[in-house]
């Protein structure tokens, strides 16, 4: 009876403790994305409020309008910081889910993204302690100067995500080509004429080589994604175009394999 409270405490710990890692595991790429999308909506609302109070202050220049502008700007800058933080978290979670084998580029991106996510709350502390609009603007400039680097980092991560996903599919195509080649060899040993199938197989391998070249070209552009790139979206579209071509070649390789199977199954 003396030890009953201790027993209850231990029991409670044993019941609830296992849930903590489970709840942490529930936070996946999908949840991270929802979190980011929720925050960007809050940012848009805060931006409207800031715009209105800014116009009011610039028009009337009263103390009241100045205080209102100060509060709404603090709110906006905080929300902007949270939006960027949740965005980078979403990118990081997607990078983690899309890539199963760690490599140097991926590790590097993790470290850099984590650095940026860690830095953001320090900028928020500056906003909250600012007493004047001028202080807020100066604090904002520090964030604004850092953001292009964060953008470039995010694009590089997205490039890695797509590259890894395509690489996995390319490995699957190669695996199918290998199995098909073995089957054709087996048929040839039984005296079958497999010249047509072999021609299709050569074409399929050629398509995979071209696909590989496109992927490597895209990777080269991804590595060169810089903070000072003025048209980041245009540059990303260039990279994305190479991924489309890479994907198209893999589809064509699959079409060649489909022709082989058709030939193999048909007696004509």
């Amino acid at each position: 009876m003396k030890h009953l409270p201790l027993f209850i405490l231990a029991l409670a710990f044993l019941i609830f403790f296992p849930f903590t890692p489970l709840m942490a595991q529930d936070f996946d790429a999908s949840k991270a994305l929802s979190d980011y999308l929720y925050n960007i909506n809050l940012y848009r609302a805060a931006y409207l409020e800031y715009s209105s109070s800014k116009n009011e202050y610039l028009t009337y220049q009263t103390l009241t309008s100045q205080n209102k502008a100060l509060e709404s700007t603090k709110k906006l800058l905080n929300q902007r910081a949270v939006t960027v933080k949740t965005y980078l978290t979403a990118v990081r979670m997607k990078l983690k889910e899309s890539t199963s084998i760690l490599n140097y580029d991926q590790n590097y991106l993790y470290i850099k993204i984590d650095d940026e996510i860690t830095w953001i709350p320090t900028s928020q502390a500056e906003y909250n302690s600012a007493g004047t609009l001028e202080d807020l603007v100066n604090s904002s400039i520090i964030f604004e100067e850092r953001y292009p680097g964060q953008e470039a980092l995010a694009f590089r991560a997205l490039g890695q995500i797509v590259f890894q996903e395509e690489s996995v599919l390319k490995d699957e195509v190669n695996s199918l080509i290998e199995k098909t080649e073995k089957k054709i060899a087996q048929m040839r040993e039984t005296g079958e004429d497999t010249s047509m199938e072999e021609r299709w197989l050569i074409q399929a391998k050629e398509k995979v080589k071209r696909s590989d070249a496109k992927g490597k070209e895209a990777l080269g552009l991804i590595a060169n994604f810089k903070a000072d790139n003025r048209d980041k979206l245009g540059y990303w579209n260039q990279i994305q175009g190479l991924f489309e071509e890479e994907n198209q070649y893999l589809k064509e390789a699959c079409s060649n394999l489909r022709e082989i199977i058709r030939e193999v199954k048909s007696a004509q």
Partner: protein
Amino acid sequence: MPNKTLPKALLIFLPIILVVFLLGIYYRAQKTSAPTSVNQTEITPTPTSTDFVPSKWAGDEEVLYLETDLGNLEKKLSEVDLKQLPLLPPILDMRIRFE
């Protein structure tokens, strides 16, 4: 008087001959009228049956597995997200100023 009857006969028979001649041209034109389509279809021999005739490998287990795997792979290639639109960087105001 033969000079007077000849022009009269011509007046009567010439239109008749002309009408008959025109009718003849019309009927000939009807018989040999060009087809409405630009490409004339040629008469082709009756096609033979093109039903699929399976080879001895058609039921081979490995071939069928290859076919299934290929179908799954083609689906994955179509579904891969190459654009990553939801994860493109957000458009934020990076020029907060009061001027």
